[in-house]
């Protein structure tokens, strides 16, 4: 998978700097990394822009000499935190890849429970393991760039990497999913009686779920000016239960900072 320096690309005659990148994963399903290697049509182009020195899902060699670290997953154990700090030291740019890395992802659901021992017993029974409350990467180290999504949208990663290489600014949408959903001319799920977090969730997925007739679960976290309070009220008025609403808002951890979600479960 390593390409030689001579294969460095040029853009309008100007040679492009080819950064060394590494991929790492913590507690996650590794689905985000899979997304990247899944894109067969553009994978070779993508790989010719960067020099991958570390990618467990696709190669066996390893190196600590990298400039950009893409880190997937959340931090659930103390040894993970130590490993992340080391990565931070090595990398010039640390990218949180996917919702687990950005805000804990599905893993953080267990944080809803006040008693971690109870959680351990429920999940692992007689075979307890070392597990602490889930933390997003930024709760442990500084994060330079966030790529949202569960999973991430490969086109977005490619665009971000390309912009890093070309020195172009990286603009990810601040507006919510509805914007993309309308452009895709979907029937609004609320018209069909289904819940959707599209109005408060950051766009960038090209309204992936509504395109497939499923309401948004907020995997990309809040849009920049998300009106979570009023959205909750709207959903209630439309007949959705508190449970349905909280289940969605809670699912990926992106909305954890909103006062509407501070309430915790009974354990």
């Amino acid at each position, binding site marked *: 998978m390593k390409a030689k320096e001579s294969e460095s690309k040029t853009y309008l005659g100007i040679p492009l700097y080819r950064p060394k990148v590494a991929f790492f994963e913590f507690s996650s399903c590794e689905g985000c990394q899979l997304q990247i290697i899944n894109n067969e049509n553009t994978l070779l182009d993508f790989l010719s822009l960067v020099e991958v020195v570390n990618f467990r899902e696709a190669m066996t060699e390893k190196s600590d000499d990298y400039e950009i670290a893409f880190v997937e997953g959340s931090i659930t154990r103390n040894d993970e935190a130590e490993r992340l700090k080391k990565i931070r030291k090595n990398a010039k740019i640390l990218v949180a890849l996917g919702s687990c890395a950005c805000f804990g992802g599905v893993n953080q659901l267990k944080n809803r429970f006040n008693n971690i021992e109870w959680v351990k017993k429920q999940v692992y029974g007689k075979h307890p393991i070392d597990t602490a409350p889930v933390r997003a990467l930024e709760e442990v180290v500084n994060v330079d760039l966030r790529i949202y999504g569960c999973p991430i949208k490969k086109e977005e990663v490619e665009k971000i990497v390309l912009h890093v290489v070309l020195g172009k600014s990286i603009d990810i949408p601040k507006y919510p999913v509805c914007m993309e959903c309308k452009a895709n001319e979907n*029937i*609004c799920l609320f018209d069909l009686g289904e819940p959707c977090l599209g109005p408060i969730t950051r766009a960038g997925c090209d309204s992936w779920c509504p395109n497939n007739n499923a309401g948004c679960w907020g995997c990309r976290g809040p849009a920049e000016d998300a009106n979570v309070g009023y959205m909750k009220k709207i959903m209630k008025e439309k007949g959705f239960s508190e449970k349905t609403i909280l289940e969605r808002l809670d699912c990926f951890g992106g909305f954890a900072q909103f006062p509407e979600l501070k309430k915790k479960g009974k354990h």
Partner: protein
Amino acid sequence: MIFRIFEKKELKNLFEILAAHNKVVGPVEIGKDKQCNPIYAFTEVSDFNSIKLDYTTTKLPAKRYFLPFHEDLSTFRIKDNNWQKTIDYNADRPLIFFGLHPCDINALNKLDKVLLHSVFPMPYYVAKRKNMFIIGIDCVPQPFCFCRSMGSDTALHGFDMFITNLGTRYFVEILTDTAYNFLKNIKTEEPKEKDHILYMKSAAERNKKFTAKVDTTDLAKILDMEFQSDVWKQWGDKCLACGTCANVCPTCYCYGVEETVDINLKSARKTKMLHSCNLIDFAEVAGGHNFRPERHSRLKYRYYHKHRGFVEAFEESLCVGCGRCGESCLAGIKVPEVIASVRGGKKR
């Protein structure tokens, strides 16, 4: 203006003639909502029977056919240190609109003022606008329609022909020679005095059906006076800043432009994307400063553009009263209510 009248079954013949060589866009049913009401949309049609001429309204206007949500303004082929630019107005063939309501025709007329008759016309719009044939059709006012308040309940120009349902026959107004020539292919008659009376009766019946209203008296002035009103904050607290109101609006034309390079570095493009003044990204400028970081100020400016700024520039508002924005807004923010609250008609 020339008037004719023809039997309803002749409309199908007209459709066949038009559809034989052209792309036809018409209102069709795309599903049912949870109350089992049909949901309509404008799409390309090849079968006359799939067109629902008695449609209430469509969720989205026909805007994407003349202002697409995304449109490449130019594309670039890159080779070594050179590039070749291609500009395409994306109007490769004429489009026939089969059944636009007066509000949507008036929306086009308003867009024309900015995008066609202005000092700097937008060629991408002009190319499409000049390449369309429009058949207007009368409608039954819905509870959310306030087009009459906005002077958009009838269309005086901006179409080729306009048909009105008179029971067993259609009464047709002909505005262009293209329409006149097409109509030569079907059986039409000169309307008689009794047909005129039928037409006027049907128009009067329709007028009675308008329920939603907006008081536009002195509105531009009142908006100026009430710039600091608390009501803006109250509506802003509800707004989700989702941009849906602009996306479903037949007259919103704001856009952003993005330049992207394809990952193979062999091509690039400049793409226009429709935007909305309610979005937080809208008023952000280079360097990160945002002129309207608060939802209520953005929502307010949407109303100021529609009902004040545009009125000052063109002596008419940039709203045709189609009611789409209010119907699609999950927060229930509707133009008649917002305007009434600014006028003090609603208890605050």
